[in-house]
């Protein structure tokens, strides 16, 4: 049985991601947030479960659907929201936006606008950990979509031959933008790809945060003991389209309903109240805490200034 405190934190992380996404989507609809916005709704258990198994010296590389990873690594909602609003107080001074958030205090080396673009960089972070005797490991969040890109296999192969402390997490949400996984691969159990090149690989229910957390703990331990790399495929499903303006009409209703009934927050709440005997009031309190933190973040971001033209010019002189 996992410690109650950890369980509550897993729930809090997921609820924070959910709240952040829903509130920011509102801001997007109001025209306050522009550009691309890829919600992590429905996939919260993966970021929360994996990152709870990590320590302060560990690195992550993230994806275009990266808000969840950033939050799960302990990012400050003020600075995240400010970044999404293009403000100077944001993590990237408003120059990166949703697809490029990086938070070095949390070892988050960055989201990425190119599908598969961050995989090799994550392997590089693993190389630093190994050759510089850093304590950390490197966790690469990637996806079913990226797994069909050449750099996925290339990078995993490099991690394997150099025996790097790398945990590669495939968030298999079963869609590459709008193309279902059945149409893009003849073997939709993606963890099997790791086996073919000598990587310890397995699959986990990506909607079950307890399962993700438990399997991550084992995988992280192996990486720290020099038994990396490890590949973990977490099967999940988006709660909507590819980005906020994609209604996802191509997603079969019954399948979507099935996954929504297995919403990671619902499953976790059930586990907490029924198995772990956490009181409903405790959960309500966590939720209120998160909601008020998010309200503050929006206020902070709205009040923050933008980078001035002079500041922008000065910064770009180096290029």
């Amino acid at each position: 049985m996992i410690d109650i405190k950890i369980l509550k934190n897993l729930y809090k992380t997921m609820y924070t991601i959910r709240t952040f996404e829903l509130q920011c989507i509102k801001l997007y609809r109001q025209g306050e947030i522009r550009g691309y916005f890829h919600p992590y709704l429905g996939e919260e258990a993966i970021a929360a479960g994996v990152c709870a198994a990590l320590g302060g010296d560990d690195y992550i590389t993230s994806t275009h659907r990266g808000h969840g990873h950033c939050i799960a690594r302990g990012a400050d909602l003020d600075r995240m929201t400010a970044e999404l609003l293009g403000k100077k107080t944001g993590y990237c001074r408003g120059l990166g936006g949703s697809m490029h958030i990086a938070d070095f205090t949390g070892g988050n080396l960055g989201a990425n606008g190119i599908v598969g673009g961050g995989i090799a960089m994550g392997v590089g972070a693993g190389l630093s950990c190994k050759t510089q005797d850093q304590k950390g490991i490197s966790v690469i969040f990637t996806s079913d979509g990226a797994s069909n890109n050449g750099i996925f296999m290339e990078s995993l192969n490099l991690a394997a031959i150099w025996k790097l402390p790398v945990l590669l997490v495939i968030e298999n949400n079963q869609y590459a933008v709008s193309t279902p996984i059945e149409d893009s691969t003849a073997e939709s159990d993606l963890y099997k790809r790791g086996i073919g090149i000598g990587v310890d690989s397995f699959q986990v229910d990506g909607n079950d945060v307890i399962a993700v957390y438990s399997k991550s703990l084992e995988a992280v331990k192996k990486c720290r003991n020099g038994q990396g790399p490890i590949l973990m495929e977490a099967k999940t499903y988006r709660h909507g389209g590819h980005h906020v303006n994609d209604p996802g009409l191509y997603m079969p209703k019954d399948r979507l309903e099935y996954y929504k009934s297995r919403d990671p927050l619902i499953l976790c709440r059930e586990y907490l109240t029924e198995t772990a005997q956490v009181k409903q009031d405790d959960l309500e309190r966590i939720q209120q805490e998160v909601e008020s933190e998010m309200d503050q973040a929006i206020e902070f971001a709205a009040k923050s200034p933008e980078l001035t033209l002079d500041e922008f010019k000065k910064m770009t002189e180096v290029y």
Partner: protein
Amino acid sequence: MPGQAAAVQTAAREIFYREALNEALRQEMRRDPSVFLMGEGIAGRGGSYKVTVGLLDEFGTKRVMDTPIAEASFTGVGIGAAITGMRPVVEILFVDFTMLIMDQLVNQAAKYHFMSGGTRSVPMVLRTQGGVGNGLAAQHSQSLEALFYHIPGLKLVMPSTPYDAKGLLAGAIRCDFPVVFIEHKMLYMNKGYVPDKEYVIELGSGDIKRPGRDVTLIAWSNMIPRSLSAAQKLAGEGIDVEVVDPRTLVPLDKKLILESVRKTERVVIVQEAPRRGGVASDIASIVQEEAFDYLDAPIQICAGRNTPIPFNLNLESISIPQEEDIVQAVKNVFVS
């Protein structure tokens, strides 16, 4: 300070361009334990052009790493290592093969500092080798500097002499931004004076390879020795050519170029790469914008043809500027 002159004063030995590069790598690896090398066949074999010979023995497998033929990923590994405390020197065997790494280089490395709001940079050197010679045909002979020149966030270095090769490679390794360092396959066996002591040429400083009064000839990489021969010939005909080698195209030593132009009032730019969309065109544009009133004749660009490089050796040589083409281009700026 003219590089050649400095070299003559401080050392009494001539070494190959490839040996000068090797010295720079050794110098920087001894100085900074975070510097390491990655590439195809660079460890035990010492690289196809023998630039990394002996480094495995001194620094071991952790710092001189052979890679599979997987350019995109090992370049990405370099970027990841660079943003987590190391200074990788990644070797791409031919500049032609950098086409396989463009996402990592252009979308990742070049933009990382910017996208992260200037909080973290990518101190990585991408060593590669390009240019025409020896009948290597269309996929192993390209001069692709214009592609990298175009991308904000990348530095671009193209040394023409052993002295510059050593100093600039050291400068590139110490630079906090991603540097594309393009060597030329026909220069590896050129000899020149190189100090054995440690020195660094900072990126952005050009060099006058031959002072002259009558015309400014701007060239880089393997077009430098060829232009110097042309200048020698022209001297016999009473034309005193100043040969300016920017050495690094990004950043570009505009000051040095413009000073020379204001003195000579005539400009010829020589590039091995195809004419269309080349760096020469951009330099011409800078010169006419900033020194138009000084020009006594239209700027001449002597460049490669707009063609893939042919295998046939005769056709290969007429695809890029030869000495007589450079001589003619210089004479053209004196026809009124």
